[in-house]
């Protein structure tokens, strides 16, 4: 194909960029976000860097937002107990080592706290009863044999089921918090049955008041 043959027909100067090619826009360097010094989000005055806190604080009843539950009460329709506001643990110091021996394990695709795991949960509950100033974070984890966001929800159900067990054991609901890591933080990075068994777990993290 000779170029001259084209010239009769060409749309010379058809600017691709003007046609909305998006790649040009991404050439702007990505500003690294400043690392967080503590668990407390930065003040709203910081524009770049730390994540700006919510426009409306939790509890502000704006536009149909649900009012804050001051003392969590069991929801009769689900049988589950709501969690206290996240602000009540902002700034607390996590101690991941304290309950490292009490990690509990789950069956495939299940969030049932098995009887065989009750002694570890009870040990955590007994210890918490001696530390009224402390709170507890429960991290739920999954093996890799599920889709990612299904696993993130399943990990949360594992943490929540463990929380319900501890509430039943006599720990005040407002002291126990949950979060899920799905399959993102495997204890064993392998792809074997043994690795999967080790990864289906809930870990207990002691939260201590700032000194």
């Amino acid at each position, binding site marked *: 194909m000779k*170029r001259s043959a084209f010239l009769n027909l060409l749309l010379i100067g058809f600017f691709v960029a003007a046609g909305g090619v998006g*790649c040009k826009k*991404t050439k702007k360097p990505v500003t690294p976000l400043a690392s967080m010094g503590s668990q407390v989000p930065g003040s709203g005055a910081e524009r770049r860097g730390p*994540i700006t806190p919510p426009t409306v604080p939790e509890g502000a009843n704006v*536009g149909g937002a649900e009012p804050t539950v001051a003392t*969590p009460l069991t929801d009769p329709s689900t049988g589950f107990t709501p969690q206290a506001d996240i602000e009540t643990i902002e700034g607390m110091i996590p101690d991941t080592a304290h309950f490292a021996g009490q990690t509990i394990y789950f069956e495939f695709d299940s969030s049932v706290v098995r009887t065989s795991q009750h002694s570890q949960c009870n040990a955590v509950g007994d210890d918490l009863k001696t530390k009224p100033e402390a709170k507890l974070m429960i991290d739920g984890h999954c093996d890799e044999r599920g889709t990612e966001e299904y696993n993130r*929800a399943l990990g949360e159900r594992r943490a929540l089921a463990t929380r319900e067990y501890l509430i039943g054991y006599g720990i005040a609901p407002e002291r126990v918090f949950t*979060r899920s890591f799905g399959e993102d933080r495997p204890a064993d990075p392998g792809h074997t049955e043994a690795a999967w068994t080790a990864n289906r777990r809930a870990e207990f993290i002691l939260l201590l008041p700032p000194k």
Partner: protein
Amino acid sequence: MIKSIYSLGFALVLVGWCAGVGTRAGEAERIRISAEAWSTTPPIPIAMSGYSGEVDRVLRFDLEIAGFKFVGESDSSCQYVLKGGNSGQVEGRLTDALKRATLFAKAYSGGSVRSQAHALADDVVLAVTGKPGIARTKIAFKVSHGQTSEIYVADYDGHGAVPATQDKSIAAAPTWRPGHRTLVYTTYKLNNPDIVSHDLDSQERRVVARYSGSNISPAVSPDGRRVAMVLSKAGSPDVYVANIDGTGLKQLTRTREDESSPCWSPDGRTICFATRIDGRRTLAQVPSDGGAIQRIATSGVVNPTEPDWSPDGKYIAFTAQMGAFEICLVKAGGGEAKLLTSGEDPCWAANSRTLIFTKRGSGGKRFLSLLDVPTKQSKDVLQNIGVSSQPSWAR
């Protein structure tokens, strides 16, 4: 003005080829790219010549994933001929081989040669199908680095990837705010899985949901004004909806099960998600303003998760877990499910025919792949930045 120049070129070529009209008429029934994703359609035969190197590779990638297959110009099945070159700028002339008519002739300037080639591919798709191509669209996805993960943005073929986050924390489940250069995703940067919106131009991030428990799986409504997500603050993972700035939070489901992966119908009225009803995992839907939960049947497959509603409203793509993961399709009202290919976490392009999804390779290593649903032609996205998953198509 552009159109008038066009018509001139078109007319000239018509005159030039008049003598040849009719010689191939009736030889082959024309294959049309069907908008119907349900039935398998054969790819459209096209002959291409004159290109080299990267431009040739881009055009082949773009056109095959758009539902074309390459044949020789003398092949009796050939329906379109694309001729041109890339010495300097990319040029192309598309001819209808049956009608012997030039559909367009263009030269491209500005941008990279890749973007020029993508623009030519989109013009071929538009000329043949009457619908805009997807070769110049963007994707966002999760890239895992061991114990941490970041969100990246790239061209739809994986080229030109740039990190959107550099937190050395976990970032997951990115989703585009339609019509904006804004991503909404889950970040663990503040030591809790929180949902933030991230303006890619200003780099400003704002919290959408940071409640006690997990704040996960965001999906922005088609009008860009609301976010559906899964929160567990009430004691179980439930579907909520809020305004894009986090205000106006409303709980839509209140079940003992773990809801996951909400997505929106294109009219914004319905949210589809994965849950469990009577002990069996299922897809379900709920009005986005609140109301009763309705099951969406996916007959023939089990353990459906990760639904994504096609922009034309006709289909829901989802993942079924049946030993391995399978990408499936069901009509939006539910019914018989259709298996498409192995993979997980499908996301539709704006054209309602191309899916991007996650594949697992040897050793569980994840990467992204594209599927043209009507022709079942598939292409892997460039893998040069590590373990990739959870793709979201900008639309």
